[in-house]
């Protein structure tokens, strides 16, 4: 079983139709052993479908799926070497925590005694020692979530699948549990495919992010690559809430491009851009603003006070801009004329 490809995953031209509707037209994707890959994308883009095909819970309409180098396209879910953490946890409500965790081991033919020991070790791994006798309804949401992870992990699968595992948790717990999952994954070295539509979560845990749009891969790469070099306005907008504005590239030298946008001139990494019209992604927090008039002016349309920062919508010559001001104290009123500027770090040309 310990082939060098153990833990590798490949989708080869996979298509999935639901009746007449094509959810995934043609997906080709490789995942290396030991990698944590996040599927990210707006609602309905096919993340869950992709994950379920990998688990064997949906069968592809065409194409092949390989796990550990072996074609599993026609293998039923219970004979695939993957396990899954469900969004709803799916803990069996009539079994104790220990029974839940031992369930998969016993299904695989392990005797009750050793299975129980392994289950206890699994619970220890996620910090739930001594809770084995409780029923799922007697645990908090975060604890239940960890049981679900333990239940999947004790099987030592080649690949662990997680479908929005944190979406039922509150913000603080979410941050903690996602760190725990990442730690476990790095410690034990299994391959993980992680589905989320929270871009912050994706940036925080992934080795690689695959952004999907309408069943297609819009871009894949490391978190940094995606954030700093978006391949399209969709990516720029989806990752890090950027404004996409038209600009004019004046010249390119030494890998840097000089661009004109609004009334301002900026220097940004060129990314193979050629002189001429182009598109520039401008992060909301890369816009600075001051009351008054300037070379690049605009008018406040609306403002919102959010405690540690202020949010504005600003009407400008290049369109409506969304800006975050972390320094202002009192919000400017709608109608106020403002002078705008850019912080270079939040700008990127769209390839």
């Amino acid at each position, binding site marked *: 079983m310990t082939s060098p490809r153990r833990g590798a995953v490949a989708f080869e031209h996979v298509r999935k139709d639901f009746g007449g509707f094509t959810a995934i037209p043609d997906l080709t994707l490789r995942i290396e052993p030991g990698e944590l890959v996040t599927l990210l994308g707006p609602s309905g883009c096919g993340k869950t479908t992709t994950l379920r095909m990998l*688990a*064997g*819970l*949906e*069968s592809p309409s065409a194409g092949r799926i390989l796990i550990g180098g072996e074609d599993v*396209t*026609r*293998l*039923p*879910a*219970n*004979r*695939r070497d*993957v*396990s*899954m953490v*469900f*969004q*709803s946890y*799916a*803990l*069996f*409500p*009539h079994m104790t925590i220990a029974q839940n965790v031992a*369930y*998969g081991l016993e*299904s*695989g033919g392990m005797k009750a005694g050793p299975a129980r020991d392994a289950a206890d070790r699994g619970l220890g791994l996620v910090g739930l020692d001594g809770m084995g006798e409780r*029923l799922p*309804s*007697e645990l908090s949401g975060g604890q239940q979530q960890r049981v679900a992870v333990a*239940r*999947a992990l004790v*099987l030592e699968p080649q690949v662990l*699948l997680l479908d929005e595992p944190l979406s039922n948790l509150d913000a603080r717990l979410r941050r903690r549990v996602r760190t725990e999952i990442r730690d476990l994954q790095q410690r034990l070295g299994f391959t993980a495919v992680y589905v989320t539509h929270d871009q912050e979560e994706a940036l925080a845990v992934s080795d690689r992010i695959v952004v999907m749009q309408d069943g297609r891969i819009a871009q894949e790469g490391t978190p940094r690559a995606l954030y700093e070099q978006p391949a399209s306005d969709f990516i720029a907008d989806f990752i890090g809430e950027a404004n996409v504005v038209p600009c004019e590239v004046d010249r390119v030298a030494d890998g840097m491009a000089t661009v004109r946008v609004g009334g301002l001139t900026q220097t940004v990494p060129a990314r193979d851009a050629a002189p001429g019209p182009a598109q520039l992604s401008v992060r909301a927090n890369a816009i600075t603003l001051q009351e008054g008039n300037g070379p690049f002016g605009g008018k406040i349309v609306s403002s919102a006070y959010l405690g540690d920062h202020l949010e504005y919508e600003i009407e400008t010559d290049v369109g409506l801009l969304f800006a975050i001001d972390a320094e202002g104290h009192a919000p400017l009123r709608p109608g106020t004329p403002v002078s705008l500027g850019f912080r270079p770090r939040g700008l990127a040309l769209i390839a």
Partner: protein
Amino acid sequence: MIRDNRRLDLLLLAALISFVILPWYRLRSGFFGLGWVGDYLTDARVWPGVAQLGQWWLWPVPVMLLAAALLRLTLPPARRGGWLAILGAAGIAWMMTQGLSVGLRGWNWAALKALGDVGGQQAFGAGAIGILLCFAGLIAYGLAERGALKGDAFVLGSITLLIGLVALFVFYPLVSMFTGAFQDFDGSFTSAGVARNIGDPKIWSLRCLFGSGGCGVAWRTFFLALSTATGTTLLGLAFALVATRMRVPFKTGLRLLTVLPIITPPFVIGLALTLMLGRAGFVTQFIEDVTGWELGRWLYGLTGIWIAQMLSFTPISFLVLIGVVEGVSPSMEEASQTMRASRWRTFRRVSLPLMAPGIANAFLISFIESMADFGNPLVLGGNGGVLSTEIFFAVVGAQHDPARAAVLATVLLGFTLSAFLAQRLWLGRRNFATVSGKGDGGRHAALPRRVAWPVTVVVFLWAAFTVFVYGLILFGGFVKIWGLDHTLTLEHYTRAFSVGWQGGFVWTGVAWNSFWTTMKIALIAAPLTAAVGLLTAWLIVRQRFPGRGIFEFALMMSFAIPGTVIGISYIMAFNLPPVQMTGTAMILIFCFVFRNMPVGVRGGVAAMAQLDASLDEASLTLGASSPRTLRRVILPLLRPAILAALVYSFVRAITSISAVIFLVSAKYNMATAYIVGLVENGEYGIAIAYSSVLIVVMIAVIGTFQLLVGERRLRRQIEPAVQKRPKEVQA
């Protein structure tokens, strides 16, 4: 891969055993008997298929099996799967074709005589049925190897088997009934019987409406069903409103009343009415004495049947409607009241329209129950019966006219199915579930006064009447001769249920024989029904297979097939090869399983819909197979539904009469059929004593089921009272 091969090898081995060892044809000694082993060498009738190959129409069977074996040896699973499935389907098709074509005395169809002369053949025996199952297995494994339904052989096998069983035990009988109408005694085609009956004024006359004279039996049955459905729906609604919207005493008592008719054999109410209002009934006598009127036989006929049906079906309608009335979200009513609507306006414009689909459902159920009712008309029908009794007399009576029975059964089926379809169509457009997932606070609006008063009065009068009738039933078992001699006695009980010692313990009572048969058959049928019903529910809810919608619809439609129609169609289908089982216990068991299964399916579907599908999926991704998932995860969570299905099928197996009366035999007589016999002989005392015992036994057994199935443990602390939604009860 290895697993795929191993299970296929086992299947082929089973096919081999079926073909070269088991008796191919049906034996008189019964399906499970082993008596044939001794005659194996001498008696050609017990020989297996391989020894029957003198009959050329069996040749395709071994050929197809060899082809399957060849595929197994030469091709890998993914490539042979499609072929295996095709072989399986072809095998089943061929077995059906040859079984239906070659009957006891040669060709069944005159057109086939051109193919040359054939001897006859018996019905399928263990060998032939084994081969059929193996072909079904080939379909399932073949499709699994192709990766259909995610390659789950268990699911595919269950679906194949279920579709086969439903086809055999629901559709084949109906088709046999239709063709039976067009067959002469010797099996040749004739339309004479149908032509004679189809325009018969005794069925279709409308003279009671226009001109003088009586109406045809079809219309009388229809009018009766309309009146019963209207009456029981109104009364049931009144009961439901009182039980949920008013503060009245005896609420639990009211609910208990509703259980009674479910465990009462259907003709018992008719019997009690006879004792009270019949010619010699004490009420009749009293009125005649006081007024000097000659009441005579006024009870017998539609009036009497109607009263009996009102008593029998009002509680059922109540059970349906109480769920409906409770289901109306209080916030809707509160919203209406905040918009300045009076209580009456709120009731009329908001509550009632929201309840309308439920009311339609209750109406439909009562309509079908009334149409299908056999026990009450049998006791109270007098000279003018209804469709179900006419069907019965067309078969067993002096006239013995199967064509007439088939025509009448078709008419009856036409009425009930139209009602079912009409309700489906009507409901399709207005399906507003008002029970939302959100916790719904708020209180139901109180009833407007002009509704509250009449409803309360009616409800209490009716409840008193019901209690009185049941008291009468109990009492009737303890008096010597009803209406003539009211001395208290245990005579009826001892005649029915005495035991004695005659050189050994003996059951001397006259009722024991049918009593034990009933218990045995009901106890075998109940778990089978629950199992088949819940498995079907699981497949319908959790598996997306092509034709699922049609399959579900067909199953639900079989609700609407009256028992009488089932009875007569079973006789017509299973009296001759290829599948012959009249006179056995098996036919009774199958009848119960497929007649009561839809209720199990419905309960199972409702229960399963509340279980998150990710529980199944989690179990699968944890490496458990589908059967293990069912056993370890689904079943423990479905305990309430299992219990309901068990109880329902058990009780229905004991109390039903309409289908049973066609299928009992001297060897396997059922309690209800036996009691009807007693009633026909005028032995009311024993009949009533026997019925009372049945009621008590059912209560005891239901309690036992409850203990066996046990509670579902989800939380350690006592669960807060969940709002229980009453199960719908169906014909």
